[in-house]
Structure formats: C-alpha cells, structure tokens
C-alpha cells in the first residue's frame, strides 16, 4: 500500500492535467485546486529550505568553522529583511526600493562577470583543444554571430547579397529549432514514462 498510493496519486494527477487540455470546461475547477495545492506545497517546501539553510549557518557559527563570519552576515541580513518585510509590508515604496537597490546591481555585476568569464572560457576552449575543426567552427560561428548582431551588414532586398545574408541569419534559427524539437520530444517521452510509472521520481 505504501508503494501504491504515491503511484496512484501521481498517475491520477498527471492524467487529470493531461485531460484538462481536452476538456477545459469540465475539469477547470479540479485543475485550479491542483494548482493551488501545488503552490501551497511549494511554499511550505521553500520555508523548509530556508529553515535548513539557517540551521546550516547557525551550526557554522556555533562550531566556529571557516566562513562563520559570512554566515553571521547572512543571518543578520536575513533577519533584517524579514523584519522589514513584516513591518513595512511588500507594498511599501521604501521596502521595494531597498530590495531593488540591492538586487539589481548585485545581479547585474554577477552577470557581467559571467560574460567576461564566458569569453575567457571560450578562449580557453581553443587553447585546450588546439586548432581542431570543432574549435575553429566555434570561433567562426561566435565571430559571425557577433558581426551580424552589430547590424552593420545590410543588403539591398532582392539581391544575391540579401539572400546570402538571410541564409547566414537563418543558420542559428535552424539550430535553435532543432534544440527546441529535441526538448519537446524529450519532455513528451519523459511525461509518458511518468504516466506509465516506468519512472517514479517520487519514490516508494
């Protein structure tokens, strides 16, 4: 019974959601309930995750491990944000400004570092692999994409140059379409495996 109940719940939920695409009018109230439950469970899981994170950092501080100071900063800022959120509420302009003023620059800095790292990694890729067809192809495609993205190359409509330009601009689209098709087929197969209980990620 312990094994069967999760299977029944998972399969029934999956089939109901799948049927919802075909019988929207009939199943929409049930789908809404399922959606509400999902959001509720996800919220509780988030709370558990926060508690686990806090516990981890508390233990780090108590045992004076390496990086305990950063754990202290994390807990302090977490508590300040929590209290400010409860006191000021999310609708408060000051609270919103506080969050955005911290989050936007921090994330933007992180992304800019990531861009530089990716540039360096691409060069490292060439250096590690040497001049192989793969590395040459990578460099050529990267350079070509950047040049096309600059917008300097224009061609008069109806000419051979325009056709060539269109061809080169469509190349990334072809690759993207292939990736999207692969993702869709993969998702379909995965869904079928879950519905037929071949895969049971929820355990027994």
């Amino acid at each position, binding site marked *: 019974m312990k094994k069967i109940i999760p299977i029944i719940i998972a399969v029934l939920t999956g089939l109901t959601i799948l049927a919802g695409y075909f019988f929207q009018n*009939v199943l*929409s109230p049930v789908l*809404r309930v399922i959606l509400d439950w999902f959001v509720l469970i996800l919220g509780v899981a988030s709370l558990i995750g926060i508690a686990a994170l806090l516990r981890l950092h508390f233990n780090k501080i108590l045992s004076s491990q390496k990086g305990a100071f950063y754990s202290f900063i994390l807990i302090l800022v977490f508590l300040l944000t929590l209290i400010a959120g409860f006191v000021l509420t999310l609708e408060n302009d000051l609270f919103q400004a506080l969050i955005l003023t911290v989050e936007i620059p921090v994330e*933007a800095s992180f992304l800019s570092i990531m861009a530089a790292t990716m540039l360096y990694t691409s*060069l490292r890729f060439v250096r590690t692999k040497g001049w192989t067809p793969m590395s040459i192809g990578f460099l050529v495609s990267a350079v070509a994409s950047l040049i096309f993205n600059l917008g300097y190359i224009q061609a008069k409509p109806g000419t051979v140059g325009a056709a060539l330009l269109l061809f080169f601009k469509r190349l990334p689209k072809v690759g993207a379409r292939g990736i999207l098709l692969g993702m869709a087929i993969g998702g379909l197969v995965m869904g079928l495996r879950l519905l037929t209980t071949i895969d049971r990620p929820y355990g027994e």
Partner: protein
Amino acid sequence: MAIIICPECGAKNALTASRCHQCDASLVEVEPVQPFNFEDSGHLPSAEEDLPGLLNALKNDEETQPPAEPDEEKTDDVDGVSEESVLEEDVPEWLLRIRQRAQEEKDALGPITQKISAAEASLLEENKEMQRQNFESWIRQIKKEAQDDEIDSIDAFVEEEMPEWLRKIRQSRETPETEEQEITPEDGEQTIPMPDWIGTRDVEPLNGQPKESDAEEESSQGLPEETIQVSTDSAVDEIPEEGSGVVSDVVQAIGPVLAVSPEEEIQADHLSAAIAAESMPKGGQEKGQKPRQRLQRILFNLGLILIMVLIAILGGRSQPSGDSLPPQNEAVIEWAQDLPASATILVVMDAQAGFYSEISMIAKPVFENVANIEREFFVLSSTPIGNLLFNRMINELELDTAISAQDLGYFPIAAYGAFGLGGDVSANWRIAHLPQSEKALPIADYDGIMILADSIVGAKAWVEQLSALMPDNQLYLFLTAQAGPMLLPYWDSGQVSGIISGISEAAGVEAALSQSSLIADRWQLYQIGIWLMLVVLIVSPFLVNHNGNTTKGKGGNEPG
C-alpha cells in the same frame, strides 16, 4: 670437492659459480672451501685459514641435530654438570684460546668469520620473515572464508526478503554478484571499482566514510576532497525504507548500477581533463605571477577601456534606421499603434533583476505607446521580483497619469502559471466540498499578452502553454539578446505574434516609433563592446599560439 659459500646468505655454491644461486651476490673474490666433516676427518685443522670450513661444518651439524629438549637441559643442570662443561673438556687448548680472545677482542675475528656470522644472522632473519608471511597468509585465508560465509548468509537473507522489483533487476543484469563487488581482506569494506576514464579512484562504500589515506591522496593530487557516490537509479531509489540495515545489506548485495555510454565517457574525459587543467598550478601562479606580465595585462585592459571611451565620446552618432526592421519587430509596432483605447493587456514578468536594465530598454518604447489611463494592465510574475520590476519600469516612464495595473501574483514555475492562466476558463462551475481559490486569475480574452523574459526556459513554457490553451490571444515577446535567437522559431510557426530581442532591435523600434535616442546611445556603446570582444576573440588564440602555450590540456599563461 671444493665449494664456495656465499658471504651474504651462507648458501653453498658450485666452484664454477660466479654468483650465488640463492641471493645472486657476487662470488668472484670469495675463496672456495673444502666441505668438512668431523666423521670423515681424523684430525682438526691446525691453521686459521681452515676456520670457515670448521664453522660451516659445525653449522651443518647444528642443523642436522634435533634441538635439545628443555627437560634434558634441566636434568643436566640438576646433575651439576652442564653439557658445555663436558664439551669444554674435549676442546683443544688452541680453540679455547681463540674463543677467549674472540670474546675479549672483537677485532680478533677474521674477516671470513665475520662474514659467516653475518650470513648466519641473515639466514635467521630470512627464516623469521618466511614464518611471518606464512602466518599472515593463514590469517588472510581464515578471514576470507569467514567473509564468504557472511556473504552467503546475506545472499540467503536477501533471497528470502527480496521483492519482485529487485529480482527483476538482478535477472536483467545476468552477472554474478561476486563479480560486482570486491571485499577488501583487511577491513571488509566494500569498494566499487570504477572505470578507467574516471581515474584511479575507487568508489567509497555507499554507507561508509571515505578513507583518510584516499583523502590524503586526493588532496596531494590537487583534486577536491569529495567522494563519488554512485546513484543507483534503478536500485537505491527503489529500495524499501523500512530498516536501514536491510537497505545497506541489499545495497551491498546488489552493487551499483553504473551504465556509461561512450558519449558519456567522452564527456567525462573532457570534464576530468578540464578539472585537471584547472587544478594544475599555473606557471604565473607558481612564480608569483611575473610583474611584467601583470603590467602587460593591466595596460591591455586599460587600453580597451580607453578605446571604448574615446569612440563613445568622439565617434559620430549613427542612429539606427527604423525602415528595415525585421518582420517580427514590425508586427509589434503595428500592434502597439493599432491597439484599441480601452484595451486589456496581460504583462508576464519572467525576468531576473540582473537583466532589468536590458529588458526595460527593450520594452520601454512599446510601453510608452500602449500605457495610458484607459487601458487596464494585469501583471503576472514567474520570478519573485517580477512585480517590483514592472512597477519600477512604469515609474521610469514618467507618465502624466498613473495606469491601472493589477497584480495577479507570483507563480514559482512558469509552466504552472501559464497552465493556470490558460486552463482556468470556467470559474462559475464549482465542485461541491472542494476548496476554491480566493484570488482567481482573470478570465478574459486579452488584447495582447506581453511576455518579458530573459531566458528561453521560462519564455518557452509561457509560449507553449498559452498558445495551446488560449489560441485566440496574441503573444508578444520582449526578450534579452541571449534568449531571442532560441525563440525565433516560435515566430516562424505563428505561435507568437511579434518579437523584440536585444538592444539592437530595440534601438530600431525606438527609431521607428520616433521617440528619444536613449536606446540608440546605449546601443552604440554596446557596439563598441562587441567590437572589442571580437578583437579579443580573434587575436588572443593567435597570440597564445605564437607563445607556444597551446598545448592540449596543459595549463599555461592566460591569453590576453
């Protein structure tokens, strides 16, 4: 017949032998001796040169005679006349003098005698070592037998308690369990041999702790001190939870499932090579990074920044024209211009805060056209900060009058938000005793759905769900440059009605709508950055090659 006694081990060798057959020591300078037998000879040797033969004969006699019983010695002692004293009476006077002198002066012994003594000591050590090895072999055999019995008992237990799923797994594997698990004789822990491509590391027992020696070895190799846990997808995940002892027994019995395809093997090889390359100390780091190289890098970076600033200040303004826009951009412009006065627009925020600057620049030209007090906006977020970003963007527009925007909340996963939005079409139809949502998503045919996204995953979920569940609504995508190319196929398929991606397209839209040149200025700076990136991409590999640092998989100086 004369023989040669090895000075190292004391073994007897033929007269013609140049090396000892026992220990392979050189016998070139060793003088041959005659085998001596007390019984055959009627007299004792009188010269010191014959002493080795005498001692050798004595040694042979000791080996052939059985050891004296302790009781007999005790009896002799009790009688008051020891065996030694009896023998001393028969020993000639010259031998007694030699013994006495040897006891008093260590140097009195000749070199041959010393060598023979060393050989005897060596033989004694060898015998002890052989005895110890025999003992260890015996102990090892006993342990192995005990472990075999234990495994048999576990197998019998597992066979009795084995569920159907495990039986199927074992049948499908068709390999004997004894081949899948190795038990070290020393401590009995189970180690799982890994393929060569992972390295020379053994997988730690699933329920055990890593050995200290292994951790030390890893740290000495510069590898991270972590153990590889093999996730047995089809076995561990399905092991019943009741009784941790049963679980560990079953895991030990069935071993891990590690199916590796050739592609995965190649990928793992690349990964391990990359990790090894990263872990290797770089030349510059080893020598504390030469100041000259560091200075070169600083100058190079400063040069790049200087070029960028100079071009931005001194370069001419090349405003993008709004005449030759891509069709997906033109579709957005047409929609914004033809929108009815009292339209309802759903805005989906699927962008992180880090992309706010870019996404707001992309969407602002259109918002400036569609945002007015008569139109109603609904905002749905699939990022926690989505609604705040929307509010900031609207505030930055500096509209004369505030617009009506209703927050529909935050959905943690885009697919669920889209499914809830598209599937909720009949709120009046209720099921008894089921809880109902307090805050239902609006049921309406929107005049347009604007999706602001920074990644293909979120945007893809929204497009696929809404185009299937709400086919009558028009979807317009406002995407960052990284997400745009991947979502263009949805424009070709007709699932979306218009797309603007990246600042380059936003600058064109801005020019077409005849608004300010804020985005065009930013786009010019972006262009300079892209040019510099192109220079680095093209030049650096050749520079690195020229310096001879492009060895495969080896660390070297950083390019640039």
